[in-house]
């Protein structure tokens, strides 16, 4: 699998060229799906938490990419372009869910509707520490949560995140450090409550 990823990185230019050719487009897109489905899935999953929602959003992401592939001219990296579509799909979905459930997150409160989704999902096998971490992450606004996930779990570079989200590196650094502080405070207060 690692060898396949390396080969893809070397062939990205060639794949982009094949995408411009109508006859080779579908085969080239299949390679894109093979390469990006897993990282995109995890990116979406960490945001929406439920497997079924993540699967639907991933399908929508690839559908949108396929329908707009002719407009992709290689000005940005293929991965950046795909992540951007996935991020937009996810944020739109979360906003729609919030409107539906009439949820608004203010202060340090956990997004209760998403926490319910997580606790009901049969594909979550985390222990108490991991569940608590997810609770703490759910106190963050969606965009900050996304930045935190990209940096903390995926070790993405700020420059990469900046290209995907369209936010400056400086603002991202500030947002991440603020998120870490908020999560650590939440977890520390939880430990104190546990001890008392």
């Amino acid at each position: 699998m690692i060898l396949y990823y390396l080969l893809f990185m070397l062939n990205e230019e060639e794949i982009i060229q094949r995408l411009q050719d109508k006859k080779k487009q579908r085969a080239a897109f299949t390679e894109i799906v093979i390469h990006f489905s897993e990282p995109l899935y995890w990116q979406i999953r960490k945001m929406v938490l439920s497997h079924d929602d993540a699967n639907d959003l991933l399908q929508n992401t690839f559908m949108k990419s396929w329908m707009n592939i002719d407009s992709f001219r290689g000005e940005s990296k293929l991965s950046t372009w795909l992540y951007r579509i996935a991020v937009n799909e996810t944020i739109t979905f979360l906003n729609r869910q919030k409107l539906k459930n009439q949820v608004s997150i203010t202060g340090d409160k956990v997004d209760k509707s998403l926490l319910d989704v997580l606790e009901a999902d049969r594909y979550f096998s985390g222990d108490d520490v991991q569940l608590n971490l997810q609770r703490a992450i759910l106190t963050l606004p969606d965009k900050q949560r996304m930045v935190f996930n990209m940096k903390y779990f995926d070790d993405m570079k700020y420059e990469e995140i900046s290209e995907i989200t369209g936010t400056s590196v400086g603002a991202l650094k500030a947002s991440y450090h603020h998120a870490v502080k908020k999560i650590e405070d939440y977890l520390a207060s939880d430990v104190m409550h546990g001890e008392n």
Partner: protein
Amino acid sequence: MNTSPLEKSKSKKNPFTVPTGYFENLTNQVMVSLPDKEIEIHHRVWKKITPWIYMAAMITGLAIGLRWIVGIDANGDAVISTNKSSQHSIKPETDAITVEDVLLSSVGEYDLYEYLFENE
């Protein structure tokens, strides 16, 4: 060394799981759901030409309606009489306007009414 709860959590494995064989079948599942681009192109072309087809149908309808309003002579030529007394005449006259004249010129509906009222 004292590690923060956040650091402790990072070392643990991914708590999210997927159904068995999910990633193995994912590519196939995605590719099957994607529409054929050829069909999509035809659909787009049809979408683009539809307003023009509607416009052509409207013009044809208008031409037929106009032909019916001005009347048709024995030879099939539409005639607009120049004086009131010969309004019902079916004889073609030299300064009469035919449907072809109206369609080929840039005469608008308003010009036509003006022309009719002038000659009443």
